[in-house]
């Protein structure tokens, strides 16, 4: 690489050159966007009209649908986690382990149902079914299940089950908000809620996607029954996922 430079310093330099290139590239995009919006071709009145009618003031129906899309995404994420954990639990718990398969299929089917038919009945089915799954999780983490290698022994809380339970609690909160009508009232009266609702889907579903992926990796690594096993490496600053 570089003849007259320490390898570490050369790497540090390359790191920062890469970072600089990225920042400059982003700055060019930002400059072009600013020019398009505020540049000479735009008149003041046009800009004001643009601000007044910006896309986040989207039709209420579109914003209204954001909550349903997020709730469906949460249910799908929980379904993937349950289905990923099903084979190992079926082998460990026998027929009781099939509950993971039932829970996963229910959550996947319900996610599809709520997207196509967002009725009060669908919402109630979601709340009751999801609370049933949460109740089973609470039993397994407090008093333990009556089957398995160690009956009536509480299991440790791990990333996958913790994540899916958080998803499920958020589903219940979201559906309750929808049933009570809090979201629709806020969407109708507050522009800030419409703005948040319009942009919330991507970060919410992105986080669900990432968390579900990490949980699935944890299941594949065999660490679903507890926090990731942390192993300091030689440098003392690195850890690893898995046993």
């Amino acid at each position, binding site marked *: 690489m570089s003849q007259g430079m320490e390898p570490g310093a050369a790497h540090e330099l390359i790191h920062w050159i890469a970072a600089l290139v*990225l*920042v400059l590239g982003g700055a060019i995009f930002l400059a072009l966007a600013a020019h398009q919006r505020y540049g000479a071709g735009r008149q003041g009145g046009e800009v004001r009209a*643009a*601000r007044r009618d910006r896309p986040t003031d989207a039709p209420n129906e579109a914003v209204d649908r954001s909550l349903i899309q997020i709730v469906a995404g949460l249910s799908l994420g929980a379904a993937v986690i349950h289905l990923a954990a099903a084979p190992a639990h079926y082998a460990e718990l026998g027929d009781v382990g099939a509950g993971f398969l039932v829970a996963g299929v229910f959550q996947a089917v319900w996610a599809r149902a709520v997207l196509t038919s967002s009725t009060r009945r669908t919402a109630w089915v979601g709340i009751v079914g999801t609370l049933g799954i949460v109740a089973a999780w609470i039993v397994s983490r407090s008093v333990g299940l009556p089957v398995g290698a160690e009956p009536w022994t509480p299991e440790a809380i791990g990333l996958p089950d913790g994540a899916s339970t958080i998803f499920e609690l958020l589903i219940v909160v979201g559906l309750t908000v929808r049933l009570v009508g809090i979201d629709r009232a806020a969407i109708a009266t507050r522009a800030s809620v419409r703005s948040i609702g319009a942009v919330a889907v991507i970060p919410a579903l992105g986080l669900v996607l990432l968390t579900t*992926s990490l949980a699935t*990796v944890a299941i594949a690594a065999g660490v679903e029954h507890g926090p*990731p096993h942390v192993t300091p490496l030689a440098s003392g600053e*690195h850890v690893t996922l898995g046993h």
Partner: protein
Amino acid sequence: MNNNNSLVMGWSALAGIVLLLAGAVGFLNTSLVGTSENALLRTDTVHNLVHLLTGLLALTIAFGLKGPQQVNAVIGFGVLYVIIFVAVLASPTLFGLFSVSANAPLHVIHAAVAVVSLGVGLMARGSSTAMVR
């Protein structure tokens, strides 16, 4: 499509391709990206997965959405990367999930994706509506 929407699409496509490549190349474990001590961007399987998935998300925004939906989505993508940036900055191993600590260039990548997505998206707000009028 107006120019600001083209910029939103262009930036989403660029971010998507870069993230997708970083994630895919990371699995190859080369001297540029991977778990090697001397890699330019030190990553691991979980981090590669994050880059792959968010890259696919950015490409979906670029080529699967249009108009106000696309603009709002790129703002949302910026918010997502703000969360990722803050989380990885607070814990470079993401609370033990990454086998390799995120280094400075990765923080810069996360920050740049967040800032540029938010900036391009927010500046594109309204432009499409104004042009339609």
